[in-house]
């Protein structure tokens, strides 16, 4: 075969391969697809073999074989992956009863569960298990033992519920981990692994969130104007094909009919002449009220935090006083959103816009609460750091005394005394564990409050409406209070903020991710049951369109906001001197320096020291800034050309319509051009063609004759 023939054949083979890859996207009948597929595969097999023979073609044949194996492996992996996806039946049931918008919350929950499971795998496999298997057991060193003073109460239920006692000195929290550089036979570097897992948690979450956002980006497609295709879209995209339950279907028919009637009325009515001034005043009033309540909630949290700092110095606290901060925060998250909704009634917006305002306000509320909480924690951390100084000296002094006493009692200065019993050693305040405990307590109280709310707000309400209806004066089911509707936005925001807290706390409490996995798992079953048993489908469905990416964008923002405190503490705060994997080092990231010096070959160390040179870093940062600026301007240029093209298409469409309807052109440019056309009536009469006379000229000539 000649070279030219071979090249042509290779091209054909590539084409057939492309056909095989895209054959499922073609709108053909199945039988036609199957026959074409078989033909293409036979062609490829026959000629790939032929192309693979002869000298120099061994590499091609090898490449072909590896591609085939890779495709098969990918297919098997896809099969395995889809087989592992849980809860398909459950979600399908929810979809068929409530439609796609409610089910989207459960799909989001399932996605979060998957992400948390991976994070749990990292933390558990690389941090917890090595410490448990290869590290020192409980009771061997001071940081792993309950102090003698607390031992009497360490097993009490109330103490355990507060995450003190045995809980505090367990793998759940930062303080348990030993700072030995390598542990066990495998020389596993635990402190390095702890730091890497902490950073890797954020890296992995970032990657997963951005990948999902990119995937969702082209689902939106809604870049037409809101009013451009109102009736057409209503007609062709309002029925939800997922519905499989007859009650839901009846509901949907009713809501579609109402929606059409409303659009017809909007179309026929002129602009409503209502009182613009009254409306503006009411909107201003509503915004003022809401700002006041946001400010009030911020101040309340600040006040409670100051009180809890006072409580910290006292000892005789009631259960309420110990948990006041968490209770108040959870209550605020529960009470304020319905309050905002009631105030928003004053504003009288279109439901879709009102939903957006509501989401924005709830977000501001949660954000304010979270950051006030964080500042409070930082105050506590600083006090603990100051305490540490004095305790450090005290514990060294106590150790010297103990040795002195021992040698004195035995009158023998030669023998080495046994080490002090671990539970007697004076401990530092260990601020990292304290922070971890705060986050765990907050998460647990959040879980309790949300479960209780569903139980009381939805279940008890449904039971009351159902059974009291028989003996009540008005129809409880149709009027007030009736059954609840599932609050999609509130639940999604709660999930997003919960995840933010997990990200913040996971560095100080490795067990927190495990607690979250359990929470998401039980949440799935509990909320699926609650929705099916106690909720009714929404009467009007208004999705904040493109809302899928809205929630992902929120998640990304929260990820960055929770990254900041953790990175700040790693970089600036000194670790406690006697607890955790970084104890004894001046800063936490010194572990990396140590590893580079001791474990990696020498040239890598010099390489890193060159790379860390400011002379290299500053140009790199400048380069990145320039690259961002360039990409920004390129994307702006693309957007502009996009707008131009759209405008052109719109103009062409409008011209067609106007020409059809014989109305004057509405396009100003066309109007102006028409005005510029010469006015024929003003022109002098044209001279006659040679050999041709107009009738008048003929007449005049005849008259002359």
């Amino acid at each position, binding site marked *: 075969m000649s070279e030219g023939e071979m090249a042509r054949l290779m091209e054909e083979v590539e084409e057939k391969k492309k056909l095989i890859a895209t054959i499922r996207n073609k709108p053909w*009948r199945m039988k036609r697809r199957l026959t074409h597929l078989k033909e293409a595969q036979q062609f490829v097999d026959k000629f790939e073999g032929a192309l693979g023979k002869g000298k120099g073609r061994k590499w091609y044949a090898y490449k072909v074989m590896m591609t085939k194996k890779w495709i098969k492996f990918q297919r098997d992996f896809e*099969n395995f992956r889809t087989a592992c996806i849980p809860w398909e039946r459950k979600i399908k049931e929810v979809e068929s009863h409530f439609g796609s918008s409610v089910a989207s919350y459960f799909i989001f929950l399932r996605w979060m569960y998957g992400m948390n499971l991976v994070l749990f795998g990292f933390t558990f496999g690389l941090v917890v298990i090595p410490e448990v298997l290869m590290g020192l057991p409980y009771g061997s060193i001071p940081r792993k033992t309950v102090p003698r003073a607390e031992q009497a109460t360490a097993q009490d239920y109330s103490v355990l519920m507060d995450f003190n006692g045995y809980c505090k000195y367990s793998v759940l929290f930062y303080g348990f981990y030993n700072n030995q550089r390598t542990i066990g036979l495998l020389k596993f570097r635990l402190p390095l692994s702890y730091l890497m897992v902490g950073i890797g948690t954020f890296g992995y979450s970032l990657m997963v969130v951005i990948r999902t956002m990119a995937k969702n980006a082209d689902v939106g497609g809604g870049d037409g104007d809101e009013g451009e*295709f109102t009736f057409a879209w209503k007609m*062709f995209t309002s029925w939800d094909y*997922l519905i*499989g339950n007859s009650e839901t279907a009846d509901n949907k028919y009713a809501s579609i009919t109402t929606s*059409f009637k409303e659009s017809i009325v909007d179309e026929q009515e002129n602009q409503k002449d209502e009182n613009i001034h009254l409306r503006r005043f009411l909107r201003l009033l509503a915004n003022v009220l809401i700002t006041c309540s946001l400010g009030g909630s911020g101040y309340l949290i600040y006040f409670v935090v100051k009180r809890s700092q006072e409580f910290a110095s006292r000892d005789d606290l009631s259960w309420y006083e110990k948990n006041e901060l968490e209770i108040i925060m959870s209550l605020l998250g529960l009470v304020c959103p319905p309050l905002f909704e009631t105030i928003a009634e004053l504003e009288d917006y279109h439901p879709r816009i009102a939903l957006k305002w509501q989401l924005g306000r709830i977000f501001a509320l949660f954000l304010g609460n979270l950051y006030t909480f964080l500042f409070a924690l930082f105050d506590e951390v600083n006090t603990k750091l100051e305490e540490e100084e004095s305790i450090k000296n005290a514990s060294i002094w106590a150790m010297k005394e103990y040795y002195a006493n021992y040698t004195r009692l035995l009158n023998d200065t030669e023998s080495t005394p046994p080490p002090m019993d671990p539970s007697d050693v004076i401990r530092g305040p260990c601020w990292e564990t304290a922070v971890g405990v705060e986050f765990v307590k907050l998460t647990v109280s959040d879980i309790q409050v949300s479960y209780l709310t569903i139980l009381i707000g939805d279940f008890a309400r449904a039971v009351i409406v159902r059974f009291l209806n028989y003996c009540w004066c008005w129809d409880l089911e149709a009027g007030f209070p009736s059954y609840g509707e599932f609050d999609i936005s509130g639940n999604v925001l709660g999930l997003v903020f919960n995840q933010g807290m997990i990200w913040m706390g996971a560095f100080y409490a490795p067990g927190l991710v495990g607690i979250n996995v359990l929470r998401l798992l039980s949440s799935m079953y509990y909320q699926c049951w609650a929705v099916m048993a106690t909720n009714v489908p929404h009467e009007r469905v208004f999705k904040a369109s493109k809302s899928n990416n809205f929630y992902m964008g929120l998640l990304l923002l929260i990820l960055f906001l929770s990254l900041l405190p953790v990175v700040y503490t790693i970089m600036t705060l000194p670790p406690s001197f006697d607890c955790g994997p970084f104890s004894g080092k001046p800063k936490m990231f010194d572990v990396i320096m140590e590893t580079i010096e001791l474990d990696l070959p020498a040239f890598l160390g010099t390489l890193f020291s060159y790379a860390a040179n400011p002379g290299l870093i500053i140009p790199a940062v400048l380069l990145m800034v320039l690259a961002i600026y360039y990409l920004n301007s390129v994307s702006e240029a693309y957007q502009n050309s996009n707008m131009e093209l759209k405008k052109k298409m719109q103009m062409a469409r409008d011209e067609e319509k106007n020409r059809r309807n014989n109305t004057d052109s509405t396009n100003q440019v066309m109007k102006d051009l028409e005005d510029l056309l010469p006015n024929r009536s003003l022109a002098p009469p044209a001279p006659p063609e040679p050999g041709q006379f107009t009738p008048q000229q003929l007449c005049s000539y005849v008259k002359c004759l």
Partner: protein
Amino acid sequence: MGNKQTIFTDEQLDAYQDCTFFTRKEILRLHGRYHELAPHLVPMDYTKDPDCKLPLALIVNMPELKENPFRNRIVESFSEDGMGNLSFNEFVDMFSVLSEMAPRELKAIYAFKIYDFNVDNYLCKEDLEKTLNKLTKEELTPEEVELVCQKAIEEADLDGDNKLSFADFENMITRAPDFLSTFHIRI
């Protein structure tokens, strides 16, 4: 994976995986659903490509299609004879197009076929009226129906023939933000 199933040969399963958006497990599950619609008609052994079609009446009783106002049109659009008799190939094709993974362009083509009641490759006013009546269970007055259909055609019609060709329909539907999430059946 080496599962010992005897319904399809491995080549058949691979071919189905190439031609649809389903994985091996889902195709076997679909065969189970197809079989349970008529256990005496549908053979368990598909290795020899048996020629077996199920009538429309059996398919529209599936729980996924039962409540859909367009169930008859859906099944008719995917059947070769246009009467709604589906072989297993067409059954799989139907659920593949309506699944989550099918791209927007493919769904737009079949949506156009479904809403084209008189099968003339145009969505004329009668098609729109039928669609609207099915959607609202005939709750709108004839004047309202007339108005809505007129407005819909005005909005989407680009070439001015008072009916929607596929180009008009596609231009309109690909911008709809809800199209992909509503035109979806989970099996």
